[in-house]
């Protein structure tokens, strides 16, 4: 071989090596690891299962779209057993031992508060989906997907009372009965204040401890008070338990509202007809008009059925969960990096498109607008009824 020929061969070999090395490097890029906990066991497991299914769907869809920053995404989820103290320990492990790249929030207020403390300690961004007490969200790099607004104790009751005022039969008297579970209790106290300012007469106010077993006397007092409207500060099963107790004494509430009911059991209960609650998303237009939503809904139906979730509809919990992942994705892509400070800076200065609508994080405690709408159980399913522009086609607030 001539000298030129030898140089050409060496050059070609070097070029091949560089190309092969580049290809190998790209293919060998480790996934971006996102760590979180969920209450996979314990009293909060029922709703956590919704968040698990949604997270799995999102990560799968995200990876099909190329992942984040050209890398696949791996979601590491640990079981915090519905215990905030365990959530704290697990988030420490995720950051220090597992060395995850990013964090995602856990389920429910107590665990999120714990995770927030850890995130703050290590300067990690924390996007979360179900924090119920905005005034306690002091960390500057936390971002909520639960669009309550910064003062939900005032804004949410005002939305509810606006809806009732616009109905054919606005109530004049109100009973406020509430669990002392933190994230519903302060809302109920807010409802009392708002009702008073709006000229409603409070005929009953009762509080019970979370975990109360006997709703008979509470039901008897409600029946005795004969309110036009009952604000029930209930979370999970409490609303159904109260309705059961009311039906046992032959009392059907005129108009009734439940703060955070277990959505499936409430809508399926024959006693819950016309029950009101809050939502950020339901499976009807205009919520379903956003791109990609229909695909998510279909996938959720299938996976929720497989997971044994009795109610397979996408509603507020599933939507808040999906939103949280959308926020995190937008933050990473917008910042162009995994640097938590850069992600936080991007999120604070941009509006993010989500299935709830455009979210902003530039208000107090990084809360933006209160996007809560009023929904009602009608014929065994939840439909949004207020404001009008978000109501299901043809749906209006029904009164007895």
């Amino acid at each position, binding site marked *: 071989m001539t000298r030129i020929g030898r140089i050409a061969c060496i050059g070609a070999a070097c070029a091949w090596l560089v190309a092969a090395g580049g290809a190998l490097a790209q293919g060998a890029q480790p996934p971006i690891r996102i760590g979180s906990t969920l209450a996979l*066991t314990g009293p909060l497991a029922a709703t956590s299962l919704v968040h698990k299914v949604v997270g799995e769907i999102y990560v799968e869809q995200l990876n099909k779209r190329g992942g984040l920053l050209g890398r696949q995404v791996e979601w590491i989820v640990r079981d915090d057993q519905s215990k905030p103290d365990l959530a704290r320990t697990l988030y420490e492990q995720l950051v220090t031992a597992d060395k995850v790249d990013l964090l995602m929030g856990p389920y429910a207020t107590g665990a999120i508060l714990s995770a927030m403390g850890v995130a703050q300690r290590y300067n990690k961004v924390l996007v979360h989906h179900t924090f119920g007490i905005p005034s306690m969200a002091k960390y500057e790099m936390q971002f909520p997907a639960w669009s309550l607004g910064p003062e939900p104790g005032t804004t949410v009751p005002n939305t509810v009372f606006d809806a009732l005022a616009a109905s054919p039969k606005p109530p004049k008297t109100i009973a406020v009965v509430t669990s002392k579970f933190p994230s519903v209790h302060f809302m109920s106290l807010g409802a009392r204040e708002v009702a008073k300012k709006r000229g409603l007469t409070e005929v009953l106010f009762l509080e019970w401890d979370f975990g*109360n*077993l006997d709703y*008979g006397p509470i039901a*008897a007092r409600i029946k005795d008070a004969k309110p036009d409207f009952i604000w029930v500060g209930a979370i999970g099963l409490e609303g159904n338990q109260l309705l059961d107790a009311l039906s046992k*004494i032959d009392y059907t509430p005129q108009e009734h509202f439940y703060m955070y009911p277990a959505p499936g059991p409430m809508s399926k209960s024959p006693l819950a007809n016309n029950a009101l609650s809050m939502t950020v998303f339901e499976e009807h237009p205009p919520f379903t008009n956003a791109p990609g939503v229909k695909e998510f809904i279909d996938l959720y139906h299938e996976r929720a059925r497989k997971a044994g979730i009795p109610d397979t509809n996408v509603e507020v919990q599933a939507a808040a969960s999906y939103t949280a992942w959308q926020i995190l994705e937008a933050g990473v892509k917008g910042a162009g990096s995994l640097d938590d400070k850069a992600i936080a800076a991007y999120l604070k200065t941009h509006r993010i498109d989500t299935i709830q609508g455009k979210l902003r994080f530039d208000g107090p405690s990084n809360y933006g607008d209160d996007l809560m709408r009023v929904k009602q159980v009608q014929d065994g399913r939840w439909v949004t009824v207020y404001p009008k522009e978000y109501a299901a086609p043809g749906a209006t607030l029904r009164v007895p």
Partner: protein
Amino acid sequence: MTFPSGTLLAQSALSGIFIGSLYGLLGLGLGLAWGLLHVINLAHFGFAFLAAYLCYQLASVGGMDPLLTLVLIVPLFAVLGIAVQWLLARFAVSPLNSLLATFGLTAIIEAGIQGVWTADFRKLESVYTGLKFRIGGLFVPVPELLTLVVALALSFGIWAAMRYTSLGRALRALAEDAPIASAFGVDARAHALLLSGLCGALAGIAGVCLALSFTLTPAQIYAWVGVVFAAVMLGGLGSALGPLAAGIVIGVSEAVTMAFASPSWAPIVSFTILILLLLLRPERT
């Protein structure tokens, strides 16, 4: 504070009697095992909920009448009760350790229930749901009335058996002084297994009553532990009638409190009664 109406008070008291009878029914098996076998069987609550879920499954999915499910549930849980006692006796587990061991068993049962039925809420809708009748201005729901009737029948039945039958006398003798009772020919092991089978069956029956009236979720197992323990301790360990009486006292005191004052005060009243009794009559426990 406005004084509640007579109807409200009476309806609340009735509600307290009904839930108190369930406390008593749940406490019956627990108290018998504790007082006579010196076994603090926390798994009693796990068994009750497992029975409730089985009742739900057989009735909701299998189409059986919920009360007929007792035909399967009672013998099954009697066997489970015997199995637990056999294990505890085999390893000579002390009373304190029985609490720990059965707590572990409860956690396993809870995980098993969640694995099969998920953690989501399950409500048994049956022919009895919503059935009620009126006595004057008071409403009497049929599922709760059934629980009261069952609790009364079982408590009095077991009381009578303990008092008037040779089996009952043998069990009481074993509880008081096992070696002497054995010297008189009482087979301690056989009687212990028999009693634990009965306690298992009682857990099964309580579970069916739970399923008739309450929505089920695995974590709810622990919601009943505190108040049922209070009923057992107030009523006296090993007593057949005590847990029922105490359960009703607790239920009514809580319900009447809720009729007068904030419902969040209700546990304070019932547990104050328990603390006072423990301080003034410690020999009851």
